[in-house]
C-alpha cells in the first residue's frame, strides 16, 4: 500500500495527517472502527444496564450489581464502528473556472486535491469511502470501499472527471439515496451556485446524514480585480454580460457577499457545516476548519 497518494502536494499531505474525520452523530455502520456507534456490545463506553435474558453470556452479567440488587443485569457498552464517508464532487461546467492570474488551477483541481486528502484520512482511520461525481447532467458513483486499491479507484475516477454540463435534475440524484444511508458522513465540494445542489444538501442533512460542505470559490469572485470593459460568460448557460468592471465592482462584491452569507445561513439552518475555500488559499485550509480545531476567518 502506497502511503503517498500522487496528486497531493507533499506539504499538504503532511499538514493533513494530523486531521481526523469524525461524525457529529453516531455511525450506524457495522464492524469495528474508531467512531461512536449505536450498536451495543462489549466496549469501554458504558451505554446501559438491561435485564438478563436467556441466551446472554454469563460473563456479561454485572456481578457487583447482582450482589447489590439480587437481580441479573447485563452491562452494555457502545461499540466503536467505522465511518462511512461519501465525497460528493460537483463537476458541472462552472467548476472548470480558474483565475486569470492562475489559469491552471481550476475549482475542480482544488476539489480533486481536497477529496484525495479526505480519502487519505479515511484510509488511515480504516473508514469506508466512496466518491460521487455530479455533473454533466449525470451522476458517476464509486461505491463504498476501503483499502489502498479502492483509494486508487476513487482517485482515478476523480482524475478523469471533466468540468462540463449543468447540475442534474432531482430525479437523476434519486438513486444516491440508496447508497448514502443515514449516519453517513457526506462531504460536498463545489461552488454551490446551483439551487439543486443546495436543496439536495438540505434534504440529505434533514434525512439524518452528517453533511459537510466546502464552498469552492475563485479569488476573482471575492475580489473582482477586473479593469476596463469586460465580457463575462457563464460557462453553464453561455449567457454573456458586457459590463464595465470598475463600475460594477462594488455592487457585485456586495451582492456576492450577501449571497455567500445567505448560503452559509441556509446550510447552517439545515445542519450542514460549511467552509469557504478560495483558490488563492492553501488547498487544505477548509479541511483544517471543518475537521480540525482551526477557526474560520472572520
Amino acid at each position, binding site marked *: 500500500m502506497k502511503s503517498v497518494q500522487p496528486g497531493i502536494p507533499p506539504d499538504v499531505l503532511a499538514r493533513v495527517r494530523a486531521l481526523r474525520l469524525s461524525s457529529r452523530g453516531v455511525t450506524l455502520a457495522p464492524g469495528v472502527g474508531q467512531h461512536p456507534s449505536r450498536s451495543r456490545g462489549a466496549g469501554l463506553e458504558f451505554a446501559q444496564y438491561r435485564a438478563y435474558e436467556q441466551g446472554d453470556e454469563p460473563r456479561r452479567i454485572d456481578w457487583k450489581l447482582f450482589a447489590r440488587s439480587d437481580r441479573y443485569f447485563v452491562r452494555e457498552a457502545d461499540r466503536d464502528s467505522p465511518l462511512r464517508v461519501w465525497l460528493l464532487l460537483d463537476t458541472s461546467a462552472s467548476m472548470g*473556472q480558474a483565475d486569470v492570474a492562475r489559469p491552471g488551477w481550476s475549482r475542480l483541481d482544488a476539489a480533486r486535491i481536497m477529496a484525495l486528502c479526505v480519502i487519505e484520512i479515511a484510509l488511515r482511520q480504516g473508514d469506508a469511502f466512496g466518491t460521487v461525481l455530479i455533473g454533466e447532467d449525470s451522476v458517476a458513483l464509486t461505491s463504498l470501499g476501503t483499502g489502498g486499491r479502492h483509494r486508487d479507484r476513487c482517485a482515478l475516477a476523480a482524475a478523469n472527471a471533466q468540468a462540463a454540463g449543468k447540475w442534474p435534475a432531482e430525479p437523476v440524484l434519486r438513486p444516491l439515496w440508496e447508497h448514502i444511508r443515514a449516519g453517513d458522513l457526506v462531504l460536498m465540494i463545489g461552488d454551490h451556485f446551483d439551487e439543486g445542489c443546495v436543496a439536495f444538501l438540505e434534504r440529505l442533512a434533514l434525512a439524518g446524514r452528517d453533511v459537510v460542505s466546502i464552498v469552492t470559490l475563485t479569488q476573482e*469572485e471575492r475580489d473582482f480585480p477586473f479593469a476596463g470593459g469586460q465580457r463575462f460568460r457563464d460557462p*453553464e448557460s453561455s449567457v454573456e454580460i458586457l459590463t464595465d468592471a470598475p463600475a460594477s465592482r462594488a455592487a457585485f462584491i456586495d*451582492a456576492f457577499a450577501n449571497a455567500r452569507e445567505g448560503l452559509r445561513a441556509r446550510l447552517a439552518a439545515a445542519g450542514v457545516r460549511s467552509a469557504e475555500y478560495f483558490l488563492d488559499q492553501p488547498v487544505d485550509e477548509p479541511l483544517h476548519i471543518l475537521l480540525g480545531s482551526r477557526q474560520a476567518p472572520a
Partner: protein
Amino acid sequence: MNLTFVFPIGLLALGALLVPLLLHLARRSEYRTVDFAALRWLAAHARPRRRLRLVEHGLLLVRLALVTAIALLLAGPVWTGGMRSRAWTVVVPGVSPAAVPLPAKDSVDERRWLSPGLPRLDQPAPQPGAPIGSLLRELDARLPAAAPLTVWVPRELAGLDGASIELARPVRWRVAPGAANVSVPRGAARVPFAVRFDADRESALIYLRAAWRAWAIGHSAPAAKPMQGQALPDVSSSANLPADRRGALVWLRSGDLPREVIDWVLAGGTILVEPRTNTRVSFASSAVAWRDDDGRALARTVRSGRGRVVRLEAALDPAALPGVLDGSFASALREMLHPPGVSPARALAKDVAPIRNPSVRRMTVPLRRDLDMETWLVWLIAVGFVIERIAGTAARRWRSA
C-alpha cells in the same frame, strides 16, 4: 521666406491622419471574455464606458508623422523668397555668345541660353526654334521679383506667338547682330512645291512655272535674290515623294494616290490635285480655296489628317480652267498651297520688345530651390517607415510573448 505649396490639394491627404488614430482607438473596443460562473450577482446594466483612450502613443506619433510627411510631400512644399537676386542674362539661340559682353569680374550673374531647360551659356548653342515668348514668360514668373533680366536677341526673332510679351519686370532688350534664331525657307514669298505629272500633262507645267517666277517679282527680301529666275526646284514625271518634304506637292497624275503620298498628307503635307486623281478623300465638308471673278468655285480644299488636300474643279488647262491665264493665278496658287491665317511667328526683334506690366504675376515654382524640401521629406518618410515597421512588429512580438 515663407512656405507655399505647389499642389495644395495634396494637403487633403492629411485626412488620412484619421486612419492611425482609428487604428489605435479600435483596440479599446475589443473586450476580453472571461468565464465567470457567478454571473447571477453581476449587474448587467453598467455598460462599459467608452473612454477614448489611445494606446501605444509612441507608435501612434510615428505613424501620424509619417502620414503628415506623405501629405506634405504630395502638396509639394517650396520655400519662396529668400533667394539672392542675382542678375540674369539670357541669350536667344542665333546670337553668337561672343556678341554678349563678358561678365564683370567675380560676378555671380546667371548667363543662360533661352531654350527649354535653360542651359548655361558656356554650353553649345541649343537648336533654334524654341517658343521665345513662352520661355520669357516662364522665366519671368520663376525668377525672384527683384532679379534684373537682360535678353540678347538676334535682329530677326522667330518663335513668337499671337500675344505680345508682357512681363512683370523691366527687361533690358539687347539686339545683337546675328542670324535669325530659326532657319526658315529662304524667300518666304515663294511657297516651295514639287510637281509630279503624267506625260500627257506636261503642258500644264508652264502655268506653274509662270506662277513660280511671278512670286519672286516685287519681293524685296534680300535672301530671295539668288533664287530669282530659277526654274521649279523639283519637277518629275515619277510618282515618288519630293526630297524636300516640307514644301507642297502638285499632283498632275491620274489614278489613285500612292499610299506613301497619302501618309505624307496625313502627316501634314499639302497636295494640289486635279479632278481625275482619286484622292479617296471626301469633299463633303470642303471649303472653297479659289474663286473666279464671278464667284464660282474653282478649287476646293479639305483637311486630311494634319495636312490638306486641294482639288481643282477642272484640269489645269486654259480650256477647262480659264483662270490659269489670269494675272491673279500666281497669288491664288500661293494661297491654295500656303493659306494665310497662320499668325506671324517672326518679327524684327526691336519691334517685339517685352512690355512691362507689373500686374502680370504668375505663381509657379521658383527656378532655384535653396532648400530642397522634397528630398528631405522623402528621407524622413523612409526613416519613419522603417521605425514604424520595427516598432509596430516589435509591439506585436511582445504582446504574443
